[in-house]
């Protein structure tokens, strides 16, 4: 039996079928997690923003006309919510912990990384660059959107995406370099 399409699930959810909406949540939870956790790091705050993302979709089901895919629509909501949460967090740190420093990477030397550890490392490194650069890296590299799509999602020119991406990579390079093996540097 073929899986129901997103459009089917959206239509059923719009008619009040909660099970259909829950399937949409299950289908896109990891994609939203990639964006939100990439932006905020793992934890209750990211979980909360993830939930809000889907609740926003639910509230907007009547307006959702399918011009963008459900995934893209959710990514747009997730990135906006994550940016708001990130700004709230920054404001809080500035107000209450003005001398607090950004967290350091998990390890300062090379190690034997499993996938989970690499993910954690990437998250920690991403937290060390400012949000406008982080946003572009999350969308452009982690999520795999093209420069044009990233520009559309963030409502900025493509040239700005390119310059932010380049600046982000400049900042990330020294942070990631200790964790890249010689073999990885020879990737074709």
């Amino acid at each position: 039996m073929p899986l129901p399409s997103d459009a089917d699930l959206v239509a059923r959810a719009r008619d009040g079928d909660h099970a259909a909406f829950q399937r949409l949540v299950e289908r896109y939870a990891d994609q939203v997690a990639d964006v939100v956790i990439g932006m905020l790091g793992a934890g209750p705050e990211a979980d909360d923003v993830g939930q809000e993302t889907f609740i926003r979709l639910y509230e907007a089901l009547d307006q959702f006309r399918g011009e963008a895919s459900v995934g893209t629509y959710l990514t747009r909501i997730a990135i906006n919510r994550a940016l708001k949460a990130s700004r709230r967090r920054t404001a809080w740190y500035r107000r209450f912990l003005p001398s607090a420093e950004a967290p350091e990477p998990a390890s300062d030397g090379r190690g034997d990384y499993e996938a989970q550890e690499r993910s954690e490392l990437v998250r920690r490194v991403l937290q060390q660059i400012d949000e406008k650069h982080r946003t572009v890296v999350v969308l452009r590299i982690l999520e795999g959107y093209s420069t044009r799509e990233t520009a559309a999602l963030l409502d900025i020119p493509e040239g700005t995406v390119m310059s932010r991406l380049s600046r982000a990579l400049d900042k990330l390079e020294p942070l990631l370099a200790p964790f890249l093996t010689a073999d990885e540097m020879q990737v074709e």
Partner: protein
Amino acid sequence: MTPDRAQLIRLMDGSLDDATARRLRSRLEHDIDLRAEWNRLQAMQSMLQSHTASFEDGFSRRVMQRLRPAPGADESLAEALQWLFVRVEVAALALIVLLAVYNVTAMNDAVAASSFLEALFGLPGTTLENVLLFAAL
């Protein structure tokens, strides 16, 4: 951002036109520095793309719980009144029975009721004698 770096990023992006991409690939074969830069970008991209994330177990259930509507003000009031009514009802019934027993046993002696129903409710019989008696009180 150097022009080379910008082009390399566009090459990664797949957004270079065919002719420029061909020229850049040709340069990559001979230019050691450009090739090193390309390898660094590729390695970083590969490392970043290894990032996978997922929410804690039960995420969809948590979302659905938040979507369940909280009882509205009217519904809450109705539930509170229902709770109150059940308790008042029992007390009121007990009081009615108590008063009825009292009326039947006590008032029958004082003022003769003309029927059991009047006695039950403590009503005196509708006789001229009773009317005069109550008027005198």
